[in-house]
Every structure is written in structure tokens, then in C-alpha cells.
């Protein structure tokens, strides 16, 4: 299940959605991405996204993950709008009978999401200035490439 939303998410509730009432799930891996304060200089991140394509693109990545690993469930939630340091930005939950599949699928989904999902972050600084748009990192491209 893919959701793009302004509101926060609850990790326990998202795990329960993939596990409650069933006996075939042995392993659940979650990844939460949080806003860092960049050594106290960041006031907030403003996250812009491409509505429609964001859901579609994460959905395409999720389908690849489901084809590649034997998963019993997969959830991705990405927030947009103003996010303060310490707050959640993104959640991935991967469930499977076995731990290796859950770990790899969650890691894959995050690596791909970083370099393929249409989201952009703008920094607002503590000193009141509107900072720069966050630049894409070479290392994120490389992280995605290693799954090919």
C-alpha cells in the first residue's frame, strides 16, 4: 500500500496492518526516515512532490520488490509539506516469512525511492533565510544502482 500524505504516520499501526489476523508473517522490517537538524542550523524542510506520479512511481518500485522477494506485505508512506527536525519523513514496511527477504526488500525500496520518487526538499534555516534546495547525492544513485 502506497500513501502520500501531509500527516504523520504510526509505525506500530502500519506493522499491525500487515500482520494482524495472520500466521504466515515471520519477519517485519521497517525503515523510518527523519528530518535532521543539521547541527542546529535547520528550522524546517519543505517537501514538494509531483501528485499522481509520486504514488505511481513508488507503486512501480513496490511491484519490482514484490516480484523480487517473497513478501507477504509491503507499505510505503511519504509525507509532504513542512517537516520539523526530529519529525518523520518516510516509512517503509516490508513483511515476509523470513528475515532476509524483509531486510532486502525494505532496503531496496528505500534506495530506489531516494533516487526515483519525485520529491524535492527545500531547507529553511534557523537564521530566517530560505536555504537551498537539497542537492541529490551521488551516493544515493550508487545505492540504487547496486540492486541492478
Amino acid at each position, binding site marked *: 500500500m502506497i500513501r502520500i500524505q501531509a500527516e504523520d504516520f504510526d509505525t506500530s499501526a502500519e506493522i499491525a496492518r500487515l500482520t494482524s489476523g495472520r500466521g504466515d508473517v515471520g519477519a517485519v522490517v521497517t525503515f523510518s526516515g527523519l528530518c535532521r537538524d543539521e547541527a542546529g542550523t535547520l528550522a524546517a524542510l519543505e517537501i514538494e512532490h509531483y501528485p499522481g506520479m509520486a504514488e505511481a512511481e513508488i507503486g512501480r518500485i513496490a511491484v519490482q520488490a514484490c516480484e523480487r522477494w517473497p513478501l507477504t506485505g509491503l507499505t510505503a508512506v511519504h509525507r509532504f509539506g513542512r517537516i520539523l527536525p526530529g519529525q518523520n519523513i518516510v516509512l517503509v514496511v516490508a513483511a515476509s516469512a523470513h528475515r532476509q527477504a524483509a531486510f532486502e526488500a525494505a532496503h531496496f525500496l528505500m534506495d530506489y525511492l531516494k533516487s*526515483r*520518487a519525485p520529491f524535492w526538499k527545500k531547507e529553511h534555516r534557523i537564521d530566517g533565510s530560505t536555504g537551498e*534546495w537539497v542537492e541529490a547525492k551521488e551516493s544515493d544513485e550508487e545505492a540504487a544502482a547496486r540492486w541492478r
Partner: protein
Amino acid sequence: MTRLIYFAWIRERIGKLEEEVELPSDVTTVSDLLQWLRGRGEGYEAALQQPKIIRVAINQEHVEHREPIAGAREIALFPPMTGG
């Protein structure tokens, strides 16, 4: 008519969220489109001066610059993504 949509600093430099354009018949690939847009004014030139780094989606799917734009209803231009 084709709908063009802009995001992040491309949107800021062009000064528009989106616009409808009538593309000339010799604009057939994504590369052609980026080149054509640069001639539309200072903001466009500032946004697209490094065409290599511009990411493009046609009908909400990523495309390479060499790909044709025939049949596109919606073309989005944006910087490299920084989600997650």
C-alpha cells in the same frame, strides 16, 4: 496542446507551476523540447542552462532525453529527486 509542469527550482526560475503550449512540429524529442524552451525567455534559460541534469517525465513516467514526445499529454520537468 501539451501541458508542461515544473517542480522545485525549475518552477521557481521559470516562475510558473505549469502551462499549456503548442509545440512546433520539429520538436520531436525531450532534448528538442528542452532546447526550444530555453529560447522562451530568461527564466527558462536560467532553469534549463544545464539540460543534462534536468529530469523529465512524460505522462508521469521517467523518460530519457533521447525519447520521443509524441502522444504526451503531460510533460514534467524537475531537478534530480531528493525524496526519502
